[in-house]
């Protein structure tokens, strides 16, 4: 009987539910939020609408919006973690031990890092790529629309697993990259590390599929006449980023799988006994992890390039050098990973090589910074919100970059390795570089997708709160790093004299929260006042690229006729030459909705859950489910539907508000 139970439920037991107040509070608030949303949808009778119009949609714009919504919700979760971390650090001094015990504190910073990278930054990135990439290259869709839906739902499945760990079980306490031997079974016997492995593994496979999809889209679906050197810089940045995805994510897949084999099958890849080699893990994870940083930041660079050219009313300065800089960064990003562990003891020669490569990669990044500055030079700059995010980025990112070059010097790195200086450095890069870029992108393209602009005043408030909060939160960390404070610190002695700076950092977090509050308010107010901010022209910012030639909100088919491209800044040149083409209408064939992506991801979720809790039947069931759903989908040949030219004409006239 005992064996039967363990076969049925693996290593689950009642101990898995949360037992301390803070976790229970988090778990309960999540459950209540889900119940509230479900009740609201039921009350409004919106389930069918949600399913038909959104969840099963293969339209990349809808998928993009869903990515961004999930990412913003996860941003709130990640910020909640920050609040706990900084409260703990501001209060846990000397005889006081703060609000969290060590184990819980470790789980929280591990979850914070994993969530912010995998489910916020990646989600915002894939969301914006989905929204804008097809429009930018003058296409109606991505190369593999169904694969796109599968990738999104795998991302959601990974996100769900990670959040499930709060309600049921525990999360990894081994840091956001789970270094062994700490993450091995011997030292982390619970399910936490397995939750970490499987939520990243499933979301990572989704990212890999997206990489394949967007690369093919860029190579095969550009509008006629758009040669590679006429692509908008954003498209180039996505191309480079997706190349990195395709080359880097398989390494993550392997690394996570090997760690799981160690933990579940008793293998010896990274164990401290049995011939295992923990440092091999660190090499592997950073061979993925360093390119990952560039995967996130390159599309943000692309967004900045679009934003600065639009709001400076000038052609982007140094297009070709921008392209070469992107290419150089892509290539070099695979040759710097060891700078994350100079202290490993690989020897002076190895450290010198990676130190020099790290300094070299700053050169193309510098080229880009100067190109952006020269784009603004002699431009007539309009300080709209996207431009503010850009200016904030230029200032903070340069400081963070200089801090990075400082740490590229191995002897200097030995002093500040794993200190709060490092934490401050990479947050400057990720917040100042990546997050600001995606916020700029969301504000910039919002009217294209929804047909009205976001409120500018609240946008400015949000920007300034974020910027001030960011500086207050991280400048103290640079100083604390020099004073010897290490990362992941849940308690310190009062004689260190660190508490004041930790309190300042905590106040900074409050300012960031204020910024987020303004952003939420900005969305609400803008939706209520959408009539005032309506974008009737389809070109609210006097844009330069093809997406602004379509009406706002952009219809599901994107373009009535696929545009022909003769130059960079194709739409700007059309406007300048005052060419207006009489509209032509044609039959448009696009994919039908499909729920199969949701089913595939649901079965993948089962596999992940089964692997975490060692429930064999669930793993088998999930795998069979994945195979069958894939087969059913591939046997379906009726996957497209055609909108007739007459219907397109009618829709286009409605969209452009032309009287029939």
């Amino acid at each position, binding site marked *: 009987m005992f064996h039967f139970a363990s076969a049925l439920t693996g290593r689950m037991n009642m101990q898995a539910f949360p037992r301390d107040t803070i976790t229970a509070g988090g778990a309960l608030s999540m459950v209540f939020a889900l119940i509230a949303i479900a009740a609201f949808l039921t009350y409004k009778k919106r389930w069918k609408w949600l399913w038909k119009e959104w969840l099963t949609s293969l339209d990349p714009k809808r998928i993009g919006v869903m990515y961004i919504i999930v990412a913003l919700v996860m941003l709130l979760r990640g910020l909640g973690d920050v609040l706990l971390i900084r409260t703990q650090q501001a209060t846990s001094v000397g005889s006081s031990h703060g609000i969290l015990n060590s184990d819980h504190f470790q789980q929280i910073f591990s979850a914070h890092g994993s969530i912010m990278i995998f489910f916020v930054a990646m989600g915002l990135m894939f969301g914006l790529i989905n929204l804008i990439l097809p429009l930018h290259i003058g296409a109606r869709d991505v*190369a593999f629309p169904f694969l796109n839906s599968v990738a999104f739902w795998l991302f959601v499945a990974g996100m769900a697993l990670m959040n499930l760990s709060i309600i049921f079980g525990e999360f990894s306490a081994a840091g956001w990259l789970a270094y062994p031997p700490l993450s091995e079974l011997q030292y982390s016997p619970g399910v936490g590390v397995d939750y970490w492995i499987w939520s990243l593994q499933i979301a990572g496979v989704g990212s890999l599929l997206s990489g394949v999809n967007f690369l*093919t889209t860029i190579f095969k679906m550009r509008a006629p006449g758009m040669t590679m050197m006429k692509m908008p810089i954003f498209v180039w940045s996505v191309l480079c980023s997706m190349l990195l995805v395709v*080359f880097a994510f398989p*390494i993550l897949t392997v690394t996570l799988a090997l760690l799981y084999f160690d933990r579940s099958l*008793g293998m010896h*890849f990274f164990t401290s006994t049995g011939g295992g080699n923990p440092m091999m893990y660190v090499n592997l994870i950073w061979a993925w992890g360093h390119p990952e940083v560039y995967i996130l930041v390159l599309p943000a660079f692309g967004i900045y390039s679009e934003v600065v050219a639009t709001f400076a009313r000038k052609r982007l300065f140094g297009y070709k050098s921008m392209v070469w800089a992107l290419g150089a960064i892509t290539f070099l990003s695979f040759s710097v990973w060891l700078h994350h562990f100079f202290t490993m003891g690989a020897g002076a020669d190895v450290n010198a090589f990676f130190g020099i490569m790290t300094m070299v990669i700053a050169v193309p990044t510098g080229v880009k910074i100067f190109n952006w500055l020269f784009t603004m030079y002699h431009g007539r700059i309009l300080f709209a919100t996207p431009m503010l995010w850009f200016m904030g980025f230029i200032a903070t990112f340069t400081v963070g970059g200089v801090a990075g070059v400082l740490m590229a010097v191995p002897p200097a790195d030995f002093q500040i390795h794993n200190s709060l200086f490092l934490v401050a450095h990479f947050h400057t890069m990720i917040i100042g570089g990546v997050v600001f870029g995606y916020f700029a992108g969301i504000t910039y393209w919002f009217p294209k997708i929804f047909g009205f602009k976001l409120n500018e005043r609240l946008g400015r408030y949000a920007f300034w709160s974020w910027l001030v909060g960011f500086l207050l939160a991280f400048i103290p960390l640079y100083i604390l790093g020099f004073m010897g404070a290490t990362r992941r610190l849940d308690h310190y002695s009062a004689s260190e004299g660190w508490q004041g700076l930790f309190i300042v950092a905590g106040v900074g977090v409050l300012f960031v929260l204020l910024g987020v509050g303004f952003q939420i308010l900005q969305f609400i107010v803008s939706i209520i006042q959408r009539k005032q901010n309506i974008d009737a022209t389809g070109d609210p910012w006097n844009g330069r690229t093809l997406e602004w030639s379509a009406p706002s909100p952009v219809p599901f088919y994107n373009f009535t006729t696929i545009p022909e491209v003769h130059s960079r800044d194709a739409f700007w040149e059309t406007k300048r030459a005052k060419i207006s083409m009489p509209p032509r209408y044609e039959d448009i064939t696009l994919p039908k909705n499909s729920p199969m992506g949701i089913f595939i991801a649901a079965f993948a979720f089962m596999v992940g859950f089964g692997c975490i809790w060692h429930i064999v039947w669930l793993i088998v069931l999930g795998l069979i489910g994945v195979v069958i759903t894939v087969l059913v989908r*591939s046997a379906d040949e009726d996957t497209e539907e055609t909108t007739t030219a007459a219907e397109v004409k009618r829709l286009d006239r409605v969209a452009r508000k032309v009287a029939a």
Partner: protein
Amino acid sequence: MSEAMVAHQSHPDDSKSILGFWIYIMTDCVLFASLFAVFAVMRNATFGGPNGHELFSLPFVLAETMLLLTSSFTCGLMVLAGRVRSKQWVMLALGVTFLLGLSFVCLEVSEFRHLVIEGNSWRRSGFLSAYFTLVATHGLHVSIGLLWLVVNGWRIVKRGLGDVTQKRLTLFSLFWHFLDIIWIIIFSMVYLVGVR
């Protein structure tokens, strides 16, 4: 005329899937490259257990290799037969490819079984963990290929040799040849170097 137009219309779609599939194969290359790198690091991590010299038998592995290489040849024949729209030759070549692939997987499983029974499972040492993971990942790919082959065969029986089926056979052959190349690297790096 109309047929040419249809061919023209269906062409870009095919070229998309083929390029997409090449990119997928590239990701798989990186996956195996990582496993090869891991194996290279773990090669001498035998932790007092047996090394490749004591474990591997070259004639056995050579038999596996010949089965897989021949299946690649018959897979090529299958694609050629598809081009001339010969359904029975496609089915024959497909059947032979399947049987050869299945025999390969059976031999591999029996080799694994043998190792485990003798107490040399993946738990024994870092070297054996790396060996089992690398070779079994390839074996898993071959098994997925076999499943795909069955699906393709079933499709041909049901719907004949249409354009979609042709395309899928082409994609399958890319996959199968790729697995062949990976096996040749495994053969050289794991077994040939291992038995010395």
